[in-house]
Each structure stands twice: as structure tokens, then as C-alpha cells.
């Protein structure tokens, strides 16, 4: 068992400032993960050169891989930092912010674009109101299992970070958003606005932006069948295309 844990962290003071690397060496403790180590650094913010520095800044919340906040690149791999267990990582552990989003500071990035995609796709079930209208429709257990899997998406950003088509300044909505469109298009009431979602996926940044690299599904921490979702939405988009074509003629 090593006595210490060493880190190489990519830092950046402001969105405009250039990135720089800083190394930290902290005492080894059992059952550590990347976040618990960042917390240790906070309690004693001294870098490997022995100089007192500002503690590393990051975002996290649930620490159990269900809120999607602490996505980072750890040893080159995009993932939730809370479940990045130290004992399974090669050292020095290299920690970087995601590369597909603007850096706010150190390991914090701005993922607003992912939430904007959900707005564009109307990723919600349209209802008449929040008063008593009785139960919803009956749903088969198999349908529920499919929907549940898709509904676990935390908007964490792993899939878009790994996607070669998702450029920092591009317009691709990304695998997570496409999969959400599938989720709502399969809901008994959500599908009432299915065509609106399909229209968005037909436009620039929609389904045609996918290059079928299949990286998304590899890195999804929730194991969501993203490529399956993209294929399904591709089918819906082409069906819609033919439907409207014949309607027009």
C-alpha cells in the first residue's frame, strides 16, 4: 500500500485565463476517491512543492453517481469523480475539466448547452394541470423498464465529452438529448408533441450530426443504450420525412 496519493491537476483561474498544471501529494487513506482527495486538499491546500495555494475548485453534490455534477476527466477518461476509487487508479492521477464545455474555474465547466438542448426538444410531458385528473394510462412492465433506463440520464456530459461530433462551438444536441427525445416520444402523453421533437432533430445539430462513433454508449455511467436511442430517433426522423413528403405531394 502506498503512503501517499499523487495528483496532477489541470487548473485555470478564470474562463479567459490559460490552463496550468499543479501537483499535489497527500497522505494515503483507505477508501479514498477523487472527490474525497480534493476535500483533503481543501483542508490543507499545499501543493507538491510545499507552497500554499488556493484549494482546487470543483463541483460535486450527491457523491454517489446519481446527480451528474462531478463529471471530470480522470486519467484521460471522462467519468464521475466521486466513483473514481483511488485504489483502482494509476498514479499520478491526472484530473482535468471536461474539454467540450467552457471552463469556469479549475474543474468546473458550464454545461448550460446540455440543458438548452432539453428546452429545444421540449423534453417534458405536456399536461393540462397539476390538479386531480385521476391516474395516468396503464403501462406494461416491459415498457416501464425501457423508459426507466432512459430516464436515468443525469445530464452529466460524459457522452458528449466522448463524442467526436460534439464540438465545443458546434450545434449538435448530443446523444443525451436525443435519447431524452426518445423517452418522451414513447410516453403515452409525451408523444402528443412527438412531431415537434422530430422537427428539431431534423434540423441542423439534430440526428444527422451523429457520426456513429459509438463512444457515447461506452462512457455512459448509467449504461443508457444511447446508440439504440439514436437509431430509434433516426428511424422516427426518416418516417416523419416520408410522411410529410407524401402529405406535401
Amino acid at each position: 500500500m502506498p503512503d501517499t496519493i499523487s495528483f496532477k491537476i489541470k487548473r485555470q483561474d478564470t474562463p479567459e485565463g490559460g490552463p496550468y498544471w499543479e501537483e499535489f501529494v497527500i497522505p494515503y487513506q483507505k477508501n479514498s476517491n477523487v472527490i474525497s482527495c480534493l476535500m483533503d486538499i481543501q483542508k490543507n491546500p499545499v501543493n507538491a512543492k510545499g507552497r500554499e495555494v488556493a484549494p482546487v475548485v470543483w463541483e460535486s453534490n450527491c457523491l454517489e453517481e446519481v446527480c451528474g455534477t462531478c463529471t471530470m476527466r480522470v486519467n484521460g477518461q471522462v467519468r464521475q469523480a466521486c466513483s473514481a476509487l483511488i485504489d483502482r487508479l494509476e498514479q499520478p492521477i491526472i484530473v482535468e475539466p471536461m474539454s467540450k464545455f467552457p471552463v469556469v474555474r479549475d474543474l468546473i465547466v458550464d454545461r448550460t448547452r446540455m440543458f438548452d438542448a432539453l428546452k429545444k426538444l421540449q423534453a417534458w410531458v405536456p399536461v393540462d394541470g397539476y390538479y386531480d385528473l385521476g391516474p395516468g394510462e396503464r403501462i406494461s412492465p416491459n415498457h416501464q423498464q425501457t423508459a426507466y433506463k432512459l430516464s436515468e440520464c443525469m445530464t452529466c456530459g460524459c457522452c458528449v465529452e466522448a463524442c467526436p461530433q460534439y464540438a465545443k462551438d458546434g450545434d449538435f444536441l448530443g446523444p443525451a438529448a436525443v435519447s431524452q427525445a426518445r423517452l418522451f416520444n414513447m410516453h403515452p402523453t409525451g408523444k402528443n408533441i412527438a412531431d415537434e421533437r422530430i422537427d428539431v432533430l431534423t434540423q441542423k445539430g439534430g440526428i444527422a450530426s451523429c457520426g456513429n462513433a459509438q463512444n457515447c454508449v461506452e462512457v455512459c455511467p448509467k449504461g443508457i443504450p444511447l446508440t439504440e436511442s439514436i437509431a430509434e430517433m433516426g428511424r422516427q426522423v426518416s418516417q416523419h420525412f416520408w410522411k410529410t413528403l407524401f402529405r406535401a405531394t
Partner: protein
Amino acid sequence: MSKQRVIMIGGGLAGLAATMKIAEQGTPVLLVSFLPVKRSHSVCAQGGINGAVNIKGEGDSPDIHFYDTVKGGDFLGNQPLCKDMCYHAPFIIYLLDRLGVPFNRTVEGNLDFRRFGGTLHHRTAFSGATTGQQLLYALDEQVRKYEVEGLVEKQEWHEYLGAVLNDEGHCVGAVIQNLRTGEIRSERGDAVVLATGGPGVVYGRSTNSVVCTGTATMSAYLQGAKYGNGEFIQIHPSAIPGRDKLRLMSESARGEGGRVWVPRQAGDSRPARQIPENERFYFLEERYPLFGNLVPRDVGAREIYDICVNEGLGVHGDLKVYLDLTHLTREFLDRRLGGILEIYEKFTGVDPREEPMEIFPAVHYSMGGIWTDFERTAEGFINHLSPRNQMTSIPGLYAAGEADYQYHGANRLGANSLLSCIYTGLMMGPGVVNHLRNLPESAEDLPQSVFDQATRQWQERVSGIRKMAGNENPYALHAELANEMISNVLIVRENSKLISTLEAIEAIEQRWHNVSCVDTKDWTNPVPSFINQLWNMIQLSKVITKGALLRDEFRGAHYKPEFDLNQPSDFKPENYLEYEDMKANGGVKTGYFAPDHLSYMERFEANNKQWLKSTIATYQSNGSDSYYSSGGPEITYEPVDASLIAARPRKYD
């Protein structure tokens, strides 16, 4: 009147439910949150949400749910609220179903329900084992729709610092800080709702998320809001040990058949699976034949403590027991508990489908919170139109969800928290809108000076913090505070230790003045914010500890062995109702009750007379002008509305 709006602080289940209900009525909402609301702590809720839909034909009803809730809370909940909540629960589950929550289904396609603690009915609707996440997402989606429509404006990456009060002490807005730019500003709002969740981080490691410091509720307390039942902190029986967090292992694991046991032989070093059935002690099943592994959380946590500490039977000699699911099939487990089993496997490296889990109790939930009001009807329900509902003692300032105090009494039942959060959010909506209608003037019409002054006050405080250059690291000081709390204000409470803890907290409070603001940058600097939060956590520690010290009884999660009334093992709670009846009608017949029963009932009656009351903490400043001065809580008590179900001894065996 100028355009009015509501400021919602917090985007968990309570905040989002209130936001969508208020927006539905056409009232604009400014929604303020530390993080994008989709990342709120509600995602951590796992097992499900209660509602007596009676899908299994067991004769369940809202009345039985109401009784279980009140009994589970050891009669300290305000009963009209509990009743109204339980009666609305089936509707709430149906609403969530309509909003797209992928609840598990029966073979016929109906909502499926499972067992949970403190009840004998299948009453808990669930979405795998990530029900909180699924509920939060459904509400987040509805609020996003209103955001697109322009009725909701979100200010994420912002922190609530305090309420803006007018000359009459009414809340007319909120001071908030942009956590990226550091800018502090005051927003006008005709009502401000604190839906800011619980304070588990006061204990350092808990099942709570990083943002759950309770800081917003303490800010309200420091501004004069009453705080209720602070000492009632729920310890969940089952969590996964961890360095940074004690990850929850849902009660649903037991609801689906999980069994808790320890080796009968102390220090048994064999691997769990090699210990034969007859050498396993299923202590909950043996001690509570009726409820078994599904006793309420206060009982479960105490029994685990007893078996490990007093009996010395903890797994490997630690404060740990086995939670065993290995007798259930993988397919069944994955379908109904997948999310939590993945968490266990990911963080421990052990597959809980193959090996019994090792779990232990952890700080989980605060039954206490900011004092809030309600208006009941003659039938014991709530008048949903009343602006008093969920209003704190500061007019115009509201609280909802875990941040309030009055639904769960001395102990919350599992799967009632998702219910109470969504119920309060929806229920309070019409009343908040009525509050706006009744106001003589809109916040928009008030002079700018009121808001500038509040902004300036907070700018001065925060700039003071930024200049702090002592030799204490605030994060390390927090760890010390947490250690005090976790060592002495947990499952078993002793007055001598509580007295020394109060002293220790005060010493930490003194040292707070000597912290160093270890990051001096202007941009996205979380340190000044944390130092203020630490101050608030110190204040809350005092509220919890002093409340615990003064409450000399054993009720729900507040266990003082010294004041245990020692219920005779053969006692039946209905005897107490008979006893009360006799007393009211000419007196107790001599020799009717066994002497030890009679004496127990007399003790119980006297204890309730003194203690069946809500604890109210009110901040008393020490006279100094400084905001960060060492004032403290003054503790008083007020009556509980226990008019619907007569208080009686609890029993689960």
C-alpha cells in the same frame, strides 16, 4: 399593483413542486439554486413515495397511512397537516404518474407498490431504486417548460444569503450571491420560499449531499425566524461506510425482503456466507415478530447500536451488521433495486446479489426545521387557500420540504419524505398566491433604498470574511465540529456529554473568528461562502444540542436512556386508551390494570404532559452589533395539534 413574483430558494422536490404550482396560477417565480436544479439532493432518495392507493387489496386507506405516520413520529407531528398530506398522497402519486415518472408496474400495468418501514401495508410507489431522482426529473421538466414560457426565471449557481425585510419586519425580497462572479444583489419578491433541504453536513459525513448545510434555514433563524424540533435528527439504520459520504442503502432493500443479521458468536471471523443459518442472529425479526426488518428507522438504528455496542455482536467487532439479499433472485433484485445495488457494488467492490452487504447507521434527515404555520379546517384538514400555510414567523417568508419542521414529529417514516416535499410544495401554492393578493403594496413599488441597504449589509459581511487571515482552515474546523456532533448528539444521548458538546461548539465558534479565507481570488471562489455556511452550521449545532440537552425524555429519534419509561414487554398500547377513558369517566378501577402497567401508564401520561410539545428555538443575540456574534438559542415549547389521534405508547413487536 405592479407585477408581483415569488422567489423560490432551492430546486429540490419541494421547491420545484411549489414553483410549478405557483406558475400554474400565472404568478412568476424566480428560482434560485446552488446548482442546476436537476442536481438537487432529492435525487438521492431511493426507495419510493407513500400513498394509500391500496392496489394490493389489503384494505389500506389514507386513515391508516395517517395513523402510521403519526405513530411513527411518536405523536409530535401536527396532525391536521399529517392527515391532509396522507389524504392527498394517492392524488400526488397519480399526478407524478401523469407527468411521466417511470414507476414500476404490476403485470396488469398498474402502479406497483412495495413495503416500507413502520407500516404493514404495501404503500410505497417506486421507480427502481432511484425514485427521488425520477420524481425530481419529472418536476424539473415541468419547470423547464415554464422557463421556456417565461414564467419561471432560474438563477442557478446562486446562493441565498438572507431575507430583505421592510420596516415592519416583513420579507420583501432576498439577498443572493452569484457564486461565479461573487456579485451580491437583492431581488424583490412578494414572498420568499426556503425550500432548501436538510442540514446533514453539520455532522460531516451523512447520507446528505454536499450542499445540505442547512445554511439558509439558519440565516432565517438569525433574522428572527423560529426553528422547531431541532434535536430530532433521523439516523438511518442502513448506510454504506465511506470517507467522504455515508451512502444510503435504502429501506426498500428490507421492504423487498432483505434480512438484517449478525453472527451469534461475537468476533466470528468467517466470511458471511460460511456462517450457517442457525448461527445467524436475525435480531430484528426475533425482537419484533410483527414488523421484523421493517421497524421504523429510530427503532432500527437503536437496535443496531444495541447489538453492536451493548451486545458486542457487530460484524468484525465494528458498528456494522449484515443486510442480506442473497436469497432473492438476480432478476428480481435488478428490476426493483438495481440502482442501489449498483451503488453498493461500485463503492465497495462487492456484489450484494452474491454477498450480504455490510451496513451501519448514519445521519439521514432532520425532522426539525424552520417553524411554519398552517390553517386547519373543522374536519381536521388544511385550508389550502390560507396564506398562513407554510409561513414562517417572518411574514412573507415561507419554508417547505425538509427545511420545515411539522410533518414527521420525532421520527419520519421511510418514503414519507418525498411525499411531504411534494405535498407541501403543491399545497402551499394557492396560499402563497393569496398572500400576494392580500398585500397592500408590491415589493416592486418599495423604495430602492430598502434593497440597497440589505445588499450593502451582506457585501460588508462577505468582504469582512474575505479579509480573514487567521490560522484556522475552515474546512478542518468544520471536520472538528462534525466530529463533536457525531460523537455526542447521535443515537444515544447523555446530558453530561451534551453539556460538554455545547462547550466544545462554543470553543469552535470562538476559533471561527480566527479562520483564514484560504482562497482570495474574486472569481468563482467558494471559500467565503463556506466560511459563512460554517458559521451557520455552528449555530445549528447549538440549536440541535441545546434542544437535546433540555428535552429530558425519550421520544422517537431522541433517545436518552436515563429517561426511558421502560414499557413492560407485555403491555398493549390500547390499554392506555382504556386508562384514559376510565380517568375521564370516574377514575381507574383499582386492580383493573397490572401494577407495573398502571405505573408505566402514569409515567407515560406525566411525561406527555410535560413533553408532548414542539421545541422552539429563537435566536438571542448577545447584544453585540456584529452579525457574527456569539448569541445562542433560547428554547421554549409550544403545543402540538394532537387533536385527531390520541397519543399512546408506541409498540412494533
